């Protein structure tokens, strides 16, 4: 893979929107092995002082990484780039209501730097207009 023309510092990537429902949380719990009841039981979540069932921080970060995979797959032959570094703080809980629509997680991204074959992406991840990740970023090998 090589870095395509038009991917340079300042390039704005196409914002992605992903729905998250209680069903998403259950499915992620099974796939990840994270069965913390604050992600499926309102009773437990409120007992520990949360506003209600919240999404796994790691689901939020996984969806940010999904956007990175989708963007970088578009750069080449459809294969996502290898991620070298990924990180974020979980700054605001993502409360997921027990209804059919849930919430929408919005992932925006900008190319921060290109250094050799490494591309640094600065992300912004919001739910309901509120930033839910602090300083989310990824470094990929293009």
């Amino acid at each position, binding site marked *: 893979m090589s870095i395509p023309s038009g991917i340079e510092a300042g390039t704005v990537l196409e914002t992605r929107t992903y729905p998250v429902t209680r069903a998403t949380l259950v499915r992620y719990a099974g796939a990840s092995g*994270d069965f913390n009841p*604050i992600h499926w039981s309102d009773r437990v979540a409120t007992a520990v002082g949360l506003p209600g069932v919240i999404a796994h921080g*790691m689901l939020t*970060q*996984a969806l940010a990484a999904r956007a990175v*995979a989708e963007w970088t797959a578009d750069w080449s032959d459809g294969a996502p780039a290898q*991620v*070298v570094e990924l990180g974020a703080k979980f700054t605001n809980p993502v409360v997921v209501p027990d209804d059919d629509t849930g919430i929408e997680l919005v992932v925006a991204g900008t190319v921060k730097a290109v250094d050799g074959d490494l591309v640094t992406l600065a992300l912004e991840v919001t739910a309901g207009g509120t930033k839910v990740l602090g300083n989310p970023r990824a470094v990929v090998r293009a």
Partner: protein
Amino acid sequence: MSLDSTLVGRTFPATPPYRVSHEKVTEFARATGTPYAADGPVPATFPIVLAFAAMNDFLDAVGVDLSRIVHGEQKFAYERPIRTGDVLTTALTVASLRQIGGNDIIGTRSDVTDADGALVCSTSAVLVHRGGTA
């Protein structure tokens, strides 16, 4: 309940060897909608499956209930891509510990190594242990 500051620097026993299967990675990729091909990179956050198992063992060892843990931060640094067929183990080290407002703020580092003992991915997490009476 506050955790004991002498935990800092302690490395807990590594998790049992875990074989990365195409089926498990596919399940994880589908749960997050992430594009994944059999010979391509696994989803970038997949090592959390290993790091989470190491964290569960750690919480059991120090007597902390999982429902009182909220994730504060997570980072991954890859030495090489994870491939299906890899046999990986994970060892958690307590990197830092401080108390703020009745909560323990636990910094952990979990190193994922392969069958040859080579580092594959270094993960670090901040875990917020919520205090209280429940």
